[in-house]
């Protein structure tokens, strides 16, 4: 079933068609959300919100745009909103993390050093990604977490392909700078 037929069936309240849409785009949406929030549980929750939004507003969808472009745009917006909402409660979270990390230190006397090193490297790359300007982060996440082409990214972000190229170039430059700084200090 092609996307247009799928949309028509969903608009006619066909639940099977909606299930097909979810299964077709589920992993892509979760990967995009995860690329922004770097937490699989949060990414799953945001992805659920994305599909609820799609279910609610499928009647407003115009087939001039590609279905996947529309879905990915909703995914980006929902993820950015989640990050903004989370920032408001950041000080509370940092307090919580303080207690959790203390508990971990007390409970885990046998620590796998390789695992710790990988966790640290993951944390560093996440921090570097989070420090990028919003547009650079969107372009980089869509390209690296979902392998989307520059053309697809330009459609989602509603900018030209050359602007996407420029955003990707600056994102990589900034990441390079952050990572070099971190490892040279070490």
């Amino acid at each position, binding site marked *: 079933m092609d996307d247009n037929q799928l949309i028509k069936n969903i608009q006619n309240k066909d639940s099977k068609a909606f299930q097909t849409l979810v299964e077709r785009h589920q992993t892509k949406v979760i990967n995009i959300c995860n690329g922004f929030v770097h937490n699989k549980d949060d990414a799953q929750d945001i992805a659920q919100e994305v599909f609820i939004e799609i279910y609610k507003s499928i009647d407003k969808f115009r087939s001039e745009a590609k279905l996947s472009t529309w879905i990915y745009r909703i995914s980006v917006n929902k993820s950015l909103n989640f990050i903004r909402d989370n920032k408001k409660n950041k000080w509370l979270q940092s307090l919580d993390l303080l207690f959790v990390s203390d508990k971990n230190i007390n409970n885990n006397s046998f620590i796998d050093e390789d695992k710790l090193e990988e966790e640290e490297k993951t944390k560093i*790359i996440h921090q570097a990604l989070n420090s990028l300007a919003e547009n650079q982060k969107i372009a980089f996440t869509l390209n690296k977490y979902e392998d989307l082409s520059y053309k697809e990214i330009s459609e989602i972000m509603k900018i030209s392909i050359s602007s996407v190229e420029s955003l990707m170039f600056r994102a990589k430059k900034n990441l390079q700078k952050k990572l070099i700084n971190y490892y040279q200090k070490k």
Partner: protein
Amino acid sequence: MKCKEVNKELIFYTDNNLSKEKKQAIENHLKTCAHCRNLYNVFKESFEIIEKEKIKELDSFFYSHLSEKINQIENKKEKVIWLKSKQVYFQAIAASLIIFLSIYSGIFLGTTNLDKSANYTNSEDYELFAESYNLNQNTKSTYEMSLLEIEEKNK
């Protein structure tokens, strides 16, 4: 190629975004420079971490959780629609109750006042009547005048 130049291009080399010539020059440099090789490994590992984070399999519970949430939303929607459709009836019942109560209280107050005022026929009785309702002097004299008028007519 010097380390400084290589460091500027290393992430593009790792991501395979360079021309053949630049790529070859960096490869030659990495063979002899341990410092740049370490940095290259950092970038390589960073891209590998991103690759590892990708989810490739479908979560079978994802759709069941989602349809549960959607059912809840639909149920709420139905309740709101039902309440809205009954809104007219609720408003009509409330309006008739208000009208009934105001008519009933009007009748009740009217009959009790008539009962009280019916017994007052002379000036002394009026004192009691006026006292109970705090009526002023003007009204009392008007009442006395009307009594005199009645007496004159009777004569």
